[in-house]
């Protein structure tokens, strides 16, 4: 049982004062980010990424990962008390969670959300402990053609899962590739798309892109509609669910955990998709579907479990294959690359301290989050009274600090502003921004794999179908593309 030995070594890494502090700090920031509407986990990760440059890789990654799963816990508080999702994965929790709060059962809704999140998060990490090393071991023999095919599959799956137009999704992927191509070609040193600018020769900064697209864009979208909301539940009571609540929700929690974990694994899936799917499943299989939308506790337990399990699931492809499944894991991949670490099949073998440290930290982090979210729920509820008009200038100041800190270059602020405006306009026109970020992060690896594959074969691109694993992965990609076109053709009005 190498996994258990690895996990024990991981606990040895994480159970130091500094790493425990960083795990707790990340959990606290994650909960805060989840609670405050208009500040998503991606923007928070991007803002705090420069802080991790001064930390050890283990400490930095532990903090960033705990912000990610911490936000999933915190998001439910806002959904239940305010009927506004704290972050995207908690949208469906608004439906029944807020209804429960209106019926005076905010405590039970918050309690079941926190307990469901804890159970699912822990189950997800247990499966991750045994599953991730297996995948990495299987992928260790991959060469450039297999890596290329795997990344193509990841991008195709992302396009399959996105909401809205597939053509727009494809366009965003291509734009991501193009943006990543700006700078010096690492293979031969040629400058591309720099137009003689020194600022562009180093490439477009990942943080400026992410903070612009997901921080500034979010602020612009929120200031457009300054909604005044009132917090329900002056005093939150009865956090521990009753026996009837347990009876109604334990199956939903387990189903949500399983579904969330699987959807987290799939590129393009992740916590948001998982929570929606879980809600749909619970309503479909319920003996009393009419209760949904009127305060059904399963409608809180299932989605909250699903979005937390999806976090563990979505970390597996990025840590064991180097393939991010959503923008947050793309940023985590970027954070590792900045630290000089390349996640992939060799990651588990070459950096066991880091891999198992992250896994072990998730067990610890889930306990921290349960403690933070149950006894301190009243504090989080008070934070919801901070009006957005006070919050958004601070978010913008933090965005500026986060962007500037990466390179100490004011040019990055202009890049951030440009991407913020572009992201706002594109969102208005129903473009999904997630494929752009994933393509932007994957592009250097994808290009390198493609060029290595073509260079190593006298037959050119034929090598991609001569190698069985690469051919299989590309065949699956092609099948998904066919499915996408069939789905598009079935919808009246074309590509929606």
């Amino acid at each position, binding site marked *: 049982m190498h996994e258990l030995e690895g996990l024990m070594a991981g606990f040895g890494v994480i159970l130091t004062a500094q790493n425990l502090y960083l795990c707790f700090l990340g959990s606290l920031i994650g909960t805060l980010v989840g609670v405050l509407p208009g500040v998503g986990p991606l923007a928070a990760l991007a803002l705090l990424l420069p802080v991790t440059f001064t930390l050890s890789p283990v400490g930095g990654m532990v903090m960033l990962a705990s912000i990610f799963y911490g936000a999933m816990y915190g998001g439910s508080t806002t959904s239940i008390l305010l009927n506004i999702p704290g972050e995207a994965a908690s949208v469906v929790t608004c439906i029944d969670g807020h209804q429960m709060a209106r019926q005076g059962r905010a405590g039970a809704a918050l309690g079941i959300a926190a307990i469901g999140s804890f159970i699912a998060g822990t189950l997800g990490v247990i499966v991750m402990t045994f599953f991730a090393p297996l995948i990495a071991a299987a992928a260790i023999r991959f060469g450039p053609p297999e890596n290329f095919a795997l990344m193509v599959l990841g991008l195709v799956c992302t396009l399959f899962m996105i909401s809205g137009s597939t053509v*727009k999704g494809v*366009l965003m992927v291509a734009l991501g590739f193009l943006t990543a191509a700006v700078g010096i070609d690492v293979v031969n040193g*040629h400058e591309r798309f720099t137009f003689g600018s020194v600022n562009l020769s180093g490439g477009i900064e990942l943080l400026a892109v992410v903070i612009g697209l997901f921080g500034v864009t979010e602020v612009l979208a929120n*200031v457009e509609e300054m909604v005044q909301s009132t917090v329900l539940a002056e005093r939150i009571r009865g956090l521990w669910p009753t026996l009837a609540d347990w009876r109604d929700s334990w199956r939903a929690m387990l189903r949500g955990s399983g579904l969330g974990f699987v959807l987290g694994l799939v590129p393009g899936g992740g916590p948001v998709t998982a929570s929606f799917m879980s809600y749909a499943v619970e309503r479909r299989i319920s003996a009393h579907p009419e209760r949904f939308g009127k305060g059904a506790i399963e409608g809180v337990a299932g989605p909250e479990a699903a979005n937390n399990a999806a976090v563990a699931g979505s970390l597996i492809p990025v840590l064991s294959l180097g393939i991010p499944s959503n923008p947050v894991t793309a940023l985590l991949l970027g954070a590792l690359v900045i630290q000089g670490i390349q996640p992939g099949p060799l990651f588990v073998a070459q950096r066991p301290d880091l891999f198992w440290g992250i896994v072990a930290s998730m067990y610890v982090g889930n306990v921290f989050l349960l403690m933070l979210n149950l006894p301190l729920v009243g504090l989080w509820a008070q934070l919801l009274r901070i009006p957005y008009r006070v919050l958004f*200038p601070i978010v913008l100041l933090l965005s500026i*600090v986060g962007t500037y800190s990466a390179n100490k270059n004011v040019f990055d*602020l202009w890049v951030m502003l440009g991407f913020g405006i572009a992201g706002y306009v594109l969102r208005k026109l129903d473009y999904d921004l997630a494929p752009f970020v994933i393509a932007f992060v994957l592009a250097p690896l994808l290009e390198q794999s493609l060029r290595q594959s073509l260079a190593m074969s006298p037959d050119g691109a034929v090598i991609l179908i001569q190698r069985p694993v690469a051919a299989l992965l590309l065949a699956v990609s092609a099948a998904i593309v066919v499915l996408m076109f069939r789905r598009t053709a079935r919808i009246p009005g074309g590509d929606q």
Partner: protein
Amino acid sequence: MMFERALNAFWILLGAATAAYAWSLGIVGPSGPDSGLFPLIAAIIIMAAGLILLLRPNPLVASQFPRGAALGRILGVIAGLAVMAIGMPYLGFAVTGAITMMILLRTVERTSLSGSIALALASVAAVVWLFDHMLGMVLPRGPWGF
């Protein structure tokens, strides 16, 4: 609808210009694929997608761009960020940040002058204390040393 059509036409032009530039970089060199191959593929995809979107516009997407006060708030945020990018190298983070905060609070939410000043100074002081002093991330300073 008009704006979306213009954007779709822009994608085609962007793709064509990028393809031409990528071609000039070289597609295949003596040692295999060259610098222009990958951008060329991306450019062709952008062009093709733009063409499809232009020929098959989506009638269901009726985007509502902001007008009036909402547009004013958005322009206020953009102006605030632009002031920050222009002023920070000369005035430092603290002073530019305070000015930007005041612009945002006055134009976007029309907070009272005294409230804006208090909130701006408190927020900037908190950010500088956290990042500059606690986390050791040196923020740009103005000629007056902060």
